[in-house]
């Protein structure tokens, strides 16, 4: 199953799908998208790489155990909720900051984005844990 065509296609599709997953996460709060869909697209890109070049190469690509991603994502989501305690507000109250980036104008960044990144990592880790262990057999 490691043909030249598939391996070459996977090499070009992997960055495209990862870029699209990041786009989905960043857009998620106000328009369709979000951490869950982004995580699914990102994990399917890694699964495509695993199908093309083998599970071992895909695990090497991640550089860490997929289960570490679950823990990191949960911690990140928890941290985004705890941030509101500093303002004396209830748990998970959204905190928003306005940033002025050169060339992009003013953008609003808030804790829901951090929470979405946490969801992204949890979904990525969960799906990859399941699929990679299934592919190994």
């Amino acid at each position, binding site marked *: *199953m490691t043909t030249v065509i*598939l391996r070459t296609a996977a090499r070009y*599709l992997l960055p*495209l*799908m990862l870029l*699209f997953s990041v786009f*989905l996460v960043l857009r998620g709060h106000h*328009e*369709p*998208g979000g951490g869950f*869909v982004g995580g699914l*697209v990102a994990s*399917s890109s890694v*699964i*495509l790489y695993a*199908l*093309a070049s083998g599970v071992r190469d895909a695990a090497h690509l991640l550089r860490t155990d997929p289960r570490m991603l679950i823990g990191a994502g949960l911690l990140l989501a928890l941290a985004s909720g705890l941030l509101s305690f500093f303002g004396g507000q209830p748990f998970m109250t959204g905190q928003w900051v306005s940033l002025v980036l050169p060339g992009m104008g003013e953008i609003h960044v808030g804790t829901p984005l951090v929470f979405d990144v946490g969801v992204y990592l949890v979904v990525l880790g969960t799906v990859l844990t399941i699929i990679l262990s299934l592919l190994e057999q």
Partner: protein
Amino acid sequence: MNGYESTILQAALLAAALMLTAAFLLAFLRLIRGPSVPDRVVALDLVAVLVVAAVAVQCIAADQPVLFDAALVLALVAFLGTVAFARYVERSGRDD
């Protein structure tokens, strides 16, 4: 958009929807009848491509640009499903 252009657009959308329906029916026929597993896999891949086209048509008909992202995700992921099926077919052929 003036009335003339909108008439052409409506006619094109209707024609596209009719042709897509015919293509769906033919692909499902192959999916049901297909004598071998690879025939069915190719039919499923064709159905996925047709769904991408149908979503794009609906995106124009409903004037909802957001729907286009669904077509984009589907086009990226449907390919993966076909690859996984191909792997399964290849592996089951080797075991026999």
